[in-house]
Structure formats: C-alpha cells, structure tokens
C-alpha cells in the first residue's frame, strides 16, 4: 500500500471534516430509525410475551431452553377442574440466564409464546421495593411473561417455522373394496420408520397422562419406542395396563384429544404407537415383562373370584395375582375376553392380539374357568363360600330397545346380541336391506359387520344408519363413520325412529321423523322432534344399537336385595366396594362402556381390595425414569 502524498497543506485537510455529517446520533434528539420505525427490527428477539389464555402449560419451552432459564410455575389451580387440554402451570423466565435464542418460541406447540421488540428492562431499586436482599436478587431477573409486550411482538411462533412436526405419519389401511369382503383387520400398523417418525413428534409434556383413565405413562413409553427399546416400552405399559395390544387397537384414545400438538396440528397417534410396540416386541420379552415379578411374589393365601373375563376382570386379575392373591375368573362364554371378543368385530380387534395378552395374564397364575356361568354352572352361594372376596365385572352384556311400535318382530334385533352371535360363529339371517338405529360405535360395529356379511352373501351393501344426533353430534368415532361410508353404508343422522313398518308379519321398513335437538339447555337427554317431516327407509331387518345395560339376572332376587340392586342399578360405596364388604365391582357397571375405563377400574378395584384386606401396604406406582 503506497503512502499518501504529503504536502504543506495536508494537515489542513482535516478541517474539511467540520462540514461532514456526523456518523453518530444524539439520542433522543435525533431518531434512531434504522428499521423503518424507532426501536428494534420486526424480527428482534427481545423480552418474552406469553398469551396466558392460549398457553397450555406443557413445559416444552422449559425443556428446550438450553440455559435452563425457564421453569414452570404452578398456577395454583385444581388439576381436576381446569380444561383437560392444559396443565396448571405457566412458564417463568430467569433473565439472568436467558440467552434470547428464542428456541422456546420456535418449540411452543400452542403458539402462545413470542418475543418482542422491547429489550429495555429496569427493575425497581431496593429503596422502592424494600424486599429482603436475597429475595430481591431473585425477583429482579425472574419474570413471568404475560401480555405485557403483546403490541410489540416480533419473533413469533408460526406453524411453518416451528421446530415441531404437526403432521401425523400416515397409517396404511386396506382399501374399502378389499376390507368389506371379509373380517380381516383394517389397519396395517406402523412400520419401524413410521413409528420412529411418530415417536419423534412427542413433546413429552404428559398432558395425556392425566386424561388417560388408566393414567398410562404415555411420554415414557413413547420415548422408549423412540429409543427402539420395545421391551422397556411394553414394561412401562404393563405398569398400568395389562391389555396394551387391545388398547392399541380399540381404545377411545382420550389422550389424543388433549395432545399438546392438537392445538395447531394433528395429535400424536398414541394408540397406534402402543400397538406398534406390543405387536413388535418379541414373545419371550413380552412374557418376561408381563410376568416379571412372578418368581418373587409370595402368596398371601387369599382367594378371589372374578365374574366376567372382560377388560376389567382381566386387569383386576392380573394386578391381584401380582400382589399374591389366588385369582379365579368365571366366564360364561367358551373363550375369555368378554366384550373385547364377543362385542367388537374382528376387523377392529383380531383374536390373535387378544389371545396373546390373555395368555400373559394366565401365565401370572390366574385361572380362567370357561363355560362357567355364575348362577347356573357355579352357584353364587358356593362362590361366596370358596372365596375371600368377589369382583363383579360382568359389564353391559344386554342391549337396549327403542321401545317404538312393533319392535317385537323377530326381524327387529338388538345389536349387541347380533355381534355376539357373529363372533360366536352362529348362523346369521342376513337381509338385503337393513336399517340400523343408533349413532355410537356399537351401531358402527353392527352396521359394518352386517355390510361384510351382505357383501359376502349378495355382493352388495344396503344398510342405512339413522340416529337422533346430527352428524357432528354423533358419539361414534369420526374415522368409524368415514370408513363406514367408504364401505357403502348410508348415514341418515338427525332422525328419530317412529315405528317399524310391518306387513304380513314381515318388516318392510323403518319410519322416522326429523329430530330437531337431542339435549335441552341443561345438557339433559330430551329429544325434540318434528313429526310432520317423516320418511321411511325400506328394510326387511331393523337393528337397534342405542345402548347397553347391565344384567344381574345371575343373582336371585334375595341376593340382589342384599347387594342393593334395585331396578337394574347397583349401589356402590365410594370406590369399588358394594354394600357387602367383600364384594367389589369394576368395569362398565361403574363407569359405562369403555375398554380403557374398564382396565383402569380393574386396576383400582384390585388396589382398593388389597387396601381393604391389608391396609395401605402398597407402594405407590413408580414412574419409569425417562433418561
């Protein structure tokens, strides 16, 4: 680099600088207006702002924070009273640690958290806020972000920019044309790749755990799936649920409806992940996990009789045998499983999956007496004498009738009975045109089962499903309805059945009228109908699927009185104990028809019975550590 030319005047050239515009600005006299308006840019990562109405308290911000600046603070709300889609927690940020990386914003599933253009923060001086010194030091930098900087939002959380995966892995199905031809299982199950991708999506916030009736440790077993340790995953499942493969197929997945990702995207396919883990774990690993304590359990000499081998009975038997009880289940059908086997069609729950899990429960030492109906093959009196305690888990085995005109015709059937017959392999009288009354999952089950039988017999499907509820209100799963439509079933929701049309003792159709509303203002069942708008669905068979009920006919009247059973309703104490102290109940009888509720009930009834026998000697269930 050449040196500049020097002359006599060179020193004076500096005087020219007097006329130059200065590079610095005098704030606040002159505006610092670099980004089109005073202040920081529109993308600045300044102080946090959090929309507390939207925040779900999932704690993902706290998890991702690389400097551990964010902690979740309890809001003091009662966990059971708030909206189940959120936790009673809110983030609090220690600005002494925060590095303003905005990872929390990019990971926020609800989009409540953002950063603002505001970056100046002054704390009150000690004089103004005379707190104890230590407390002051802590409070000075620890702030709970709220809508304070809402108007100056800059680095915001958007679905496209988020670090989360809002889209589910696709689950492969058989095509409608193929599946309607047989009772083959519809869903294929996740492949390894799909399962790993799906497991990666989980934020491990645990909102689902609270909502699951069995409080399964969902984030933990999903993490184990992600770590490709299926044995560990299934082990975690068995802590709270001895029928994971069943739940992995037919659970009502309340967990998914509250998933943190569901606020802006699709929830995690928790049910399919569970199914993937159980289906793919090795047989010997499953056996080892399911019966892991068998060798060290000491018998406590108590004999328990369980009536019914449905989900509640099996769950109670599994956990009781794990506590040292000698358990015998009495099942009136030729195979164990209850509604899971004789109510749910095999295209949703194939026998192999059920058998595999029941065999684990049997391996725990539970004896299942098949074809043994209490009241007939086994007298109630004998049962009471032989056992120290009894659990009634008979479920809801009978269907309810609409009691409209002319339902006493032999071609007007109850869904539950027919599903039973189909699963028992009995000869079914299949008609060309069928009308089904009901909008729940049982209505879907019978309609779709009959569709398969129709297809097999006549080569075509002609089934009309009608329900009081409108399409949006129908209690059946959306996917069930959509799949039913694909299989050729016609849905006519929002109609109330009036009478079954009968000519010459033969069913000719179902007459319905418009149903205006199902529930009144208080949410009580009180349908309002307009009888002027009528229509008739031609059918030679009508199936009623409007609900199920308990059946205590195996008890004599005297016994029913002893158990406080009046008009088909059993009175129970707080919990699962009946009026007779050594008789417990579990399952549908307590909480209505739902598999996961039944499993949870079975588990809780087992624990309660143990407490009743021995006092509180059980250790609480421990959560498996994540890492």
């Amino acid at each position, binding site marked *: 680099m050449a040196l500049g030319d020097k002359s006599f005047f060179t020193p004076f050239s500096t005087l020219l600088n007097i006329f130059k515009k200065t*590079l610095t600005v005098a704030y606040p006299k002159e505006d610092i207006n*670099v980004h089109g308006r005073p202040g920081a840019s529109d993308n600045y990562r300044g102080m946090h702002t959090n929309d507390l109405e939207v925040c779900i308290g999932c704690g993902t911000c706290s998890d*991702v924070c690389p400097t551990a600046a964010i902690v979740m603070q309890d809001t003091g709300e009662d966990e059971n009273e708030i909206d189940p889609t959120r936790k009673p927690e809110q983030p609090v940020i220690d600005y002494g640690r925060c590095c303003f990386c905005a990872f929390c914003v990019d990971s926020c599933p609800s989009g409540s958290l953002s950063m603002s253009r505001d970056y100046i923060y002054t704390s009150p001086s000690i004089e103004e806020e005379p707190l104890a010194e230590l407390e002051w030091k802590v409070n000075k930098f620890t702030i709970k972000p709220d809508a304070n900087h809402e108007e100056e939002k800059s680095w915001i959380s958007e679905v496209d920019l988020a670090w989360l995966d809002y889209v589910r892995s696709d689950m492969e199905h058989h095509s409608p044309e193929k599946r309607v031809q047989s009772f083959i299982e519809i869903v294929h199950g996740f492949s390894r790749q799909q399962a790993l991708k799906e497991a990666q999506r989980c934020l491990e916030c645990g909102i689902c755990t609270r909502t699951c009736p069995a409080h399964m440790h969902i984030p933990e077993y999903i993490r184990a799936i992600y770590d490709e340790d299926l044995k560990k995953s299934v082990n975690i499942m068995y802590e709270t649920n001895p029928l994971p493969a069943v739940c992995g197929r037919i659970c009502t997945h309340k967990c998914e409806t509250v998933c943190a990702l569901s606020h802006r995207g699709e929830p995690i396919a928790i049910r399919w992940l569970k199914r993937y883990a159980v289906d793919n774990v090795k047989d010997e690993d499953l056996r080892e996990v399911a019966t892991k304590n068998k060798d060290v359990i000491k018998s406590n000499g108590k004999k328990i009789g369980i009536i019914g081998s449905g989900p509640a009975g099996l769950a109670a038997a599994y956990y009781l045998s794990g506590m040292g009880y000698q358990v015998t289940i009495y099942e009136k059908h030729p195979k164990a499983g209850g509604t899971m086997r004789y109510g749910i069609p095999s295209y949703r729950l194939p026998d192999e999956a059920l058998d595999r899990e029941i065999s684990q429960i049997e391996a725990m030492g539970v004896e299942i007496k098949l074809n043994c109906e209490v009241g007939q093959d086994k007298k109630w009196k004998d049962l009471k004498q032989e056992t120290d305690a009894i659990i009634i888990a008979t479920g809801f085995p009978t269907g309810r009738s609409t009691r409209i005109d002319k339902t006493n015709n032999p071609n007007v059937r109850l869904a539950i009975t027919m599903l039973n017959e189909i699963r028992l392999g009995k000869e079914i009288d299949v008609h060309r045109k069928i009308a089904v009354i009901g909008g729940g999952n049982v209505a879907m089950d019978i309609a779709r089962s009959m569709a398969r039988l129709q297809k097999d017999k006549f080569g075509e499907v002609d089934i009309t499903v009608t329900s009081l509820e409108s399409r949006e209100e129908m209690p059946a799963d959306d996917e069930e309805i959509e799949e039913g439509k694909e299989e050729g079933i016609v849905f006519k929701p929002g109609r109330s059945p009036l009478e079954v049309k009968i000519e010459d003792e033969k069913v000719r159709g179902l007459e319905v009228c418009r149903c205006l509303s199902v529930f009144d203002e208080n949410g009580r069942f009180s349908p309002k109908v307009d009888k002027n708008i009528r229509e008739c669905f031609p059918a030679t068979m009508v199936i009623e699927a409007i609900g199920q009920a308990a059946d205590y006919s195996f008890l004599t009247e005297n016994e029913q009185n002893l158990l406080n059973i009046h008009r088909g309703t059993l009175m129970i104490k707080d919990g699962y104990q009946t009026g007779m102290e050594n008789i417990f109940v579990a399952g549908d009888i307590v909480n209505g028809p739902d598999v996961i509720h039944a499993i949870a009930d079975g588990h809780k009834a087992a624990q309660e019975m143990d407490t009743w026998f021995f006092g509180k000697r059980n250790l609480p269930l421990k959560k498996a550590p994540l890492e």
Partner: protein
Amino acid sequence: MYLPDGYTTLTKRAPKDDREVYDLFFGPNHPGMHGNFGYVLEMEGTQIVRVRPNAGMLHRGFEKSMENKRWVQNLSLIPRVCVPDPDPNEVAYCQAVEAIMGIEAPRRARYIRSVVLELSRLGSFLMGMGGVGGALGHYSIMYLMMESRDRILDLFEELTGGRVYHIYNIPGGVRRDIPPGWKQKVLDLVDHLEKRLPEYDRLLYENPVVHTRLQGLAPLSAEEAITSGIVGPNLRASGVKADVRVDAPYAAYDEIEVNIECSGGGDALARAVQVRMDYLEAIRIIRRLLAKIPDGDFKLDLGNLMKLKVPAGDAYSKVESSKGEFGYYVVSNGGMKPYRVSVRGPSLPAGLYLCHKHLPGMKIDDVAVWMATLAICPPDIDR
C-alpha cells in the same frame, strides 16, 4: 503437578532476578489483550525475553457442555466460541451434523448461509482492522469501523433476530427466510462499506506511523506458516494461496467465484493489508451471491428438532472464517446428544506456540499488535 517446559506456576520472581528481569502480566486485564487470556512476559527493561501464555481463565467448557445438550440446544452455545465472527461456528457445526445424517441443506439455505458468513466476515474484519488501529493508539479508526460494523449488525438483527449472537443456522437450513427488502438493504450496505474504504486507507493503510510500526514485525515465512498451522488471511499474507472456500467449497461457494489474492511478505503489515484485500473480496462475493440467490425452501423438515437423533458416525466440517479455517469435528453415537464435539480454532497455533518464537525481542507495545494482526482469539485456545 506436571508442567511442560515453558509453563510454570506463576511465580512473581523470574530466575535471574536482580531487578533487571521482571515478570509482566500482559492480560487478562489489559486493553491490548483480547478476552480473558494473558501472556506472562519476562522483561528486560521494555524488551521481552521470554513469554509464557497464560490460558485457562476463559474456560467455559464449550466442548464438554455440548456433550450434555441436545443437538439443537448446542446452537445457542456455539456462536459464543467466537464473538466477532460467530456464524462460521454455527455453519461448521450444522454442516457436520448434516454430513453425519447424510442430508444437505436446500440450495436457498446454502446461499443464505454464505451471505451470512460473508457479512459476518465483514463485521469481524472491521473489528480486526479497528483493533490494529486501537493497538497502535489510533482510536478514531476504531470508532469509525465500529460504526460501520453496527450497520452490519442492524441487518443481522433484521434477518436473524439477534445482533451479535445470531443463532440462525439449524441442521437442515436456517431458521427464518430472508425478510422482504433485506436483499436490497445488503446491497446498499456493501456499496456504503466500499465507499468508506478510501477513508480507512487514508487513516490506516496510508498512515506512515502504521507502516513504521507494522513493517517487519513478527515475520512468518510461508514454510513456517504452513508447518505451524497458520491458516486463512495470515497464511495468505505469507504468500500461500489457500482458502477453504476455494479448496473445499461448502455452502454456495462451489457456485460462486472466489478470487483470492496474497499480499505476501508475511509481516504484520502484510497481514493487515491482507485483511483489507479479503474485505474487498467479501463485498464482491456478497454481490455475486445476492445476484444468484435461488427461490425455494430455506430448511428441511427434520421433524421435532428437539428430539433429533443423529445416526452414529463422525464428520469434520470446516469453514473459512475471518481468521481462517474453523473446524468442527463431531462424533455421534446415534443418540439425541453429541458424543463429542471438538473445535479447531484457527488462531490457536499463533497464540499458544508461535509466541514463544516471535515475542522475545519485541517491545511491550508490540504485543497488542501481535494479538491484533494475527487475530488471536482466546476461545480458540480455551474451549
């Protein structure tokens, strides 16, 4: 305790002490020192006799910390390895992760990365050139360059949300797309920066005081520079045409013309002049990049980044920073956290080894020039 030759515990008295040789602590608390690093100089009058680098005070355990954080969480820590020029760290780390995963960032992301890297280089050069001025007592030049650097930071703020620590690159791309109008602002800025160069020349490069002070100071021959691991502008100042952008192109550099020139000479002046040449070339590269920047995605969809798993394997990724080759060696055992991350800082050889040869014989006031012209950055040593 074992100490290698040349390292001692800090005794206050030198072996030959009869008040002729004394120990002088140059740093960590000294305006001519960069960061929390120091030289313990054995002085005879104002002349250096021996030097003992005194590292360890900055130690924040970057590498070890990275083993305890998840793959993306590390990105908030990584830019802190080099404050004036943070982006090469981010890019090198992300490229290493991408290499192990067998993925490549989208083309647009690679262009954005290159623009960010060049802007970061400009900012760092301004700080470096200003640092040379500051070391020589020419503070005006430093103030002017800081003002120019601030304009670059304004653009960083608009693009990345942060001024100094951008935390902008993620495995598979960048966090945000270029905002509307930003490209034009960059073009306007580089025009402005180029226009400022004559004034910098007058103040710094044509200044006889600067020439006198820098000429012949700490000369590095090409051979010495290569054998001792000097990289980047300092290596080019010794006459070796080497640049990672040309030798092993990454990001968008394989599609862009990069002309490297050498000032030659190898002394402090050559190194200072080399920075100016590279600065001008960076301005040109930014123009070339912005002219060709393609449309498309700016990041890949890697799912939930928090639970990102990187398959078992290792990769070394290098990036030409303002100081030369910045390398990240990353090892994964297939988990959600790195098994090992090793940082190759470009100024480590000069700061730690070459000082033993070159500092003896210098005056005290040349130490700051040594630090500034070789761009010695303590986190390269203490990481």
